[in-house]
């Protein structure tokens, strides 16, 4: 089935936050943010701004009736700064005026003076200074310390991966208005409606029942609207509360980029030991997560880095410690993969380093160590229905790895100034929120008495196609045509206490709840039908909108049964609750069974590097992916291709650049580049691995949102492979992204034009050529 929203999208009729028709008297809001990354606010002079044309009022922390606190996991983040500021872009005040333009002009007139303190931007420095968000955590199995002696090879090194801007094309936005009796309705672009509701209530000193949050759809989220959508919604709610007027905020791109957190940069050290057969015997790593100035979701992200520190490999002796380091960047947050990719980059770097040093292709080591059924993960879960080897083998065979290698070698022999590189990238990703209690969802289904159906769940549609899958689940379970069913907005008054739509789990959790509700309704209708037909309900089913008795179509259709039920005062509404069974995790021991199941796959990436100019193009990416029994191959392939390209962007051109003062230099689309149509691989082939799927996946169709992003890791190693073909002596650095700059400097290491003194500008020292 195609994405059910696609017609609305191609005609421009789909509604996003900024498209909601404005109510009369609507005001506009604009945050005032800290220009410095760290310091004390000495002066905040709003007088001129308040007198600026069209300004209604400017709010500060003093106007907060409840708690000035928005931290979700840890209460460490004020909505509006009081006297200290901890990152550039930290909201300090909120201007409300008659137009967005009036607010922007007024913002230029705000005088804010800050006694600056030295900011920390490097997580290692933060750790040294004891600036930790939470105590470090260690996951381990076996005994790595005593294993080193038995290793044939032992290597140590460092791996860094930079952050990543979400760059949802729709920026953060919210529109709120007063309801009766001081209540507030908030329409917003968030992955976590309940988080917005809870936080708004807390800041306003309300009960959650006073706040209704409604989400139509998002123009992209990728994790960036999980916790980071909350402050804007709450600020606007604060303005509505005081002014009792509708207030709207649709952020400008540069404000959004400056003020919101991103994927966490990580800086890590690793040590890896292998035996002579290239089996990984032991692996140790220390991860430094750059959390930014407040916790946000960092502790949860950190946990997933630990879970996925082994990627797809079985490692008998492992010890990984992770530090969540407080720095003066905006609070970093969820981003597709949620720390998993950062943890995997380290093990992939360690393997690459070992391979180059030993002198074997990287994929030989990868292949030797793939997980198999019965292997125990370092967190205690046993690999079950493990597809690591099948996916790898299928990729090698159906995409003819040997031929690809041969092609690369021939090419590299033939051309001096162009080199090709190849990388294999297996992926293993656990599905479930790692915080067990979050793995639950609810659905509310109404069958209207004309036979049409309205469905509400806690899932937020953001392009991932969750509504399409939910529609399929409802249609299939009820036995009716999809055209009868509408998936309603996500609304806290219809479905409460929801987990955010995240962790790739939206379709599984909400789909299972929906399936349960539909089964209950269907059973009820079957009883009505049995009554009408005078038969035993046991033999009754509904298929293709018709009642079947023991498999034979009866003279009774869906609409008739629904009508009959309605006339007989049978309830046509149902809600259901689903909580993932089996999963558990003991944080004391750091062991348990945290994931419902794992998703596996393997990609082969090929790149060509222009060794004269230091640029590159990806020739192809070939993927074997384990979708289980895909509900919607088109939706799933879209997730695979989109995730791949997003991951490749992170590894190649997307370079977050904070200067030493903690100010974001890559603060617009002109300076932060995400892949365009010409920078994606010339060909992308996706093959689904034939498997049965997992019973904990919705209709055995496995979760697909996050795992494919990690195929992008291979981009780094493919480029490195090509660079080494040109300059075998270049230092092995694992410092993503591999930008054009880093490529050129690696190609010509030792031959670059060095600048001795930047200020002097023209003094140079060129080693040769």
């Amino acid at each position, binding site marked *: 089935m195609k994405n059910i929203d696609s017609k609305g999208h191609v005609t*421009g009729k789909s509604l996003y936050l900024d498209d909601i028709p404005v109510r009369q008297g609507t005001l506009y809001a604009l945050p005032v943010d800290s220009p410095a990354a760290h310091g004390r606010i000495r002066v905040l002079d709003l007088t001129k701004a308040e007198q600026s044309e069209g300004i209604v009022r400017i709010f500060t922390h003093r106007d907060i009736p409840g708690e000035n606190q928005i931290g979700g996991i840890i209460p460490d983040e004020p909505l509006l700064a009081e006297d200290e500021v901890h990152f550039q872009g930290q909201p300090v005040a909120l201007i409300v005026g008659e137009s967005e333009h009036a607010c922007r002009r007024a913002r230029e007139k705000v005088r804010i003076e800050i006694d600056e303190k030295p900011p920390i931007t490097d997580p290692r420095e933060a750790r040294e200074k004891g600036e930790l968000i939470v105590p470090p955590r260690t996951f381990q199995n076996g005994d790595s310390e005593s294993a080193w002696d038995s290793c044939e090879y032992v290597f140590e090194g460092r791996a860094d991966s930079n952050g990543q801007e979400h760059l949802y094309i729709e920026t953060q936005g919210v529109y709120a208005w007063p309801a009766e009796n001081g209540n507030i309705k908030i329409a917003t672009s968030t992955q976590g409606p309940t988080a917005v509701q809870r936080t708004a209530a807390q800041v306003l000193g309300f009960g959650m029942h006073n706040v209704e949050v409604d989400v139509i759809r998002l123009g992209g989220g990728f994790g960036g609207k999980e916790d980071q959508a909350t402050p804007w919604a709450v600020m606007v709610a604060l303005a509505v509360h005081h002014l009792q007027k509708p207030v709207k905020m649709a952020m400008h791109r540069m404000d959004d980029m400056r003020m919101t957190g991103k994927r966490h940069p990580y800086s890590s050290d690793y040590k890896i030991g292998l035996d002579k057969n290239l089996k990984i015997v032991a692996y140790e790593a220390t991860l430094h997560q750059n959390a930014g100035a407040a916790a946000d979701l960092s502790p949860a992200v950190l946990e997933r880095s630990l879970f996925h520190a082994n990627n797809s490999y079985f490692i008998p002796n492992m010890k990984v410690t992770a530090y969540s380091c407080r720095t003066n960047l905006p609070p970093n947050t969820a981003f597709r993969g949620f720390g998993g990719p950062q943890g995997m980059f380290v093990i992939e770097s360690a393997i690459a380093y070992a391979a180059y040093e030993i002198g074997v292709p990287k994929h030989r080591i990868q292949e030797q160590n793939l997980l198999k059924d019965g292997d125990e993960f370092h967190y205690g879960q046993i690999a079950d229905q493990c597809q690591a080897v099948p996916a790898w083998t299928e990729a090698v065979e159906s995409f003819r790895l040997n031929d690809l290698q041969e092609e690369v070698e021939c090419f590299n022999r033939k051309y001096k*100034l162009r080199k090709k590189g190849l990388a294999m990238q297996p992926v293993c990703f656990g599905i479930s929120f790692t915080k067990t209690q979050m793995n639950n969802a609810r659905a509310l289904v109404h069958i209207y008495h004309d036979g049409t159906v309205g469905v509400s769940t806690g899932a937020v549609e953001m392009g991932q196609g969750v509504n399409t899958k939910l529609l399929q689940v409802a249609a299939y379970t009820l036995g009716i045509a999809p055209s009868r069913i509408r998936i309603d907005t996500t609304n806290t008054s219809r479905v409460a206490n929801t987990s955010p739509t995240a962790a790739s789990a939206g379709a599984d959790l909400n789909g299972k709840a929906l399936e349960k509700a539909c089964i209950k309704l269907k059973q009820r209708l079957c009883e009505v039908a049995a009554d009408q037909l005078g038969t035993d309900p046991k033999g009754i089913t509904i298929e293709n909108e018709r009642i079947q008795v023991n498999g034979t179509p009866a003279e009774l259709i869906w609409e008739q049964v629904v009508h009959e039920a309605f006339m007989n005062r049978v309830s046509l509404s149902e809600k259901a609750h689903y909580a993932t069974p089996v999963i558990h995790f003991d944080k004391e021991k750091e062991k348990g069974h945290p994931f419902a199941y794992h998703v596996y796959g393997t990609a082969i990436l090929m790149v060509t590097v222009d060794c004269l100019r230091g*640029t590159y193009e990806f020739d192809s990416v070939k993927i074997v992916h384990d979708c289980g029994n895909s509900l919607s191959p088109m939706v799933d392939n879209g997730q695979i291709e989109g995730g791949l*390209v997003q991951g490749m962007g992170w590894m190649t051109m997307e370079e977050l650049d904070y200067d030493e003062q903690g100010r974001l230099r890559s603060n617009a*689309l002109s300076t932060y580049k*995400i892949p365009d149509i010409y920078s994606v691989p010339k060909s992308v082939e996706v093959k689904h691995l034939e498997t049965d799927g997992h019973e904990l996946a919705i209709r055995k169709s496995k979760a697909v949102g996050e795992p494919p992003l990690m195929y992008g890791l291979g981009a780094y190693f493919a480029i490195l492979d090509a660079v080494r073909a040109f300059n075998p002596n270049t230092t092995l650095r694992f410092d993503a992204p591999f930008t*054009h700059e880093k490529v050129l400097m690696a190609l010509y290491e030792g031959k*670059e034009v060095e600048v001795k003194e930047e200020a002097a*500008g*023209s003094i140079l020292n060129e080693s040769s050529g």
Partner: protein
Amino acid sequence: MVEFILNDQTVRTRKPASMTLLDFIRYEQHLSGTKIGCREGDCGACTVLIGKLNDERIHYESMTSCITPLGNAAGKHVVTIEGLNMVELTPVQQAMVDSGGTQCGFCTVGFVVSLSGYCLTAEHPTKEGAISAIDGNICRCTGYKSIENAAGDIAGQLSKKSQKEQTGWLIKKGFLPEYFSGIPKRLQKLRSYEIPENGQVMIGGGTDLYVQKHDELLDTEEVSLVFDKPDWNSIHREGSEIVLGAATTATDLMESEIMQQIFPDLHRHLKLVSSTQIRNMGTVAGNFVNASPIGDLTAFFIALNSTIVLTSPGGHQRQMLLKDLYKDYKELNTKPGEHLTQIRFPVPDDQTRFNFEKVSKRTYLDIASVNTAIQIRSAKGKIDDVHLSAGGVGPTPKYLSRTCDFMRDQALTPELLPQAHEIIQSEISPISDVRGSASYKRTLLRQLFYAHFAELYPEIFEDEIPA
């Protein structure tokens, strides 16, 4: 008063000409299909088509409405997604649906509009051409492969397009609503519109101004719009010179037969400059006057040894070599009120070769880390004349005069390059910034300098580039 046709509706408005077309469409006309992703011309979500009447026919181009002054729509046909929608999906819309080319949908309208523009203009439709038409549209969800497929599908359908009766064919096949056929006549009647010309701030395409000074411009009622000034975008030959009007766009250059004849690689080179939408808008004069040290057209025309014509408010004209226009960072050698009216450069002879190189973080739709252009005349293995420019390596666009002096009259051999390169290094002063470290920019310019020779004289340099 600004007057134009928006979709099927003639609009007359007293809104300031400096207002962005996007704000007018979304917030005055309440057409919310056109989206906002950046307000900087960099994402394409706000793309609209703007059709201008040339004789009897309308020529449509895609533009990013977020940085288009409302005044630049005067007398034209502006098409948003609402103006393309019909009861049935158009083949472009259907192809996007069928290929799975839309996920969150926020970018989708921009793609549909750009591709519809391609349908209106493509003379020899190909998949590459259709993809090229969406090179200014960014999507964060799909990874583009599905959109590429949609582009291929559309190109296939267009191959049957009648060249004579283009609009009629497109209407018949459901690409366009019926009302398009009546637009030329309606535009002809729309003669009363006026374009403000006497304001303080001169705006060409607006692609630099609206990015730098968006808020100020909205408060500037008095502007001078030169984008559509008659004769300001003609390209012609006068004796041994090519003469360009100041408002010539990069697209005008690419489509000019005169330019194509002189520069066989023109398309490949200019493709490296911004995107289709921005090339349809940004003018040559805007690029020069903006004085960005990494202006691509500036580097391009400096190496052609171009002269600019400056005109004072009183109408007095003077000429200056383009390379002499720049004093210091964003400081020009012009007098108050002077503006640029023409660009002239000598037609190169058969012995002359030209190359342009640019490397940025992202190869397309990105500002250069370093760019450089070179024009060399050589005969019998000797360099007769050479002009070399470089951008991103100092506070202004650079003409590397000492390097050129050194190379003139030298033998064109591989040994020359490292020597010339040493002089280059003494002429430049790059700084470290978001586009790269100083060391990178120096190294990169060396490589691009070598690349000029690898491109222009493969017979001499192919395997001899110093590595």
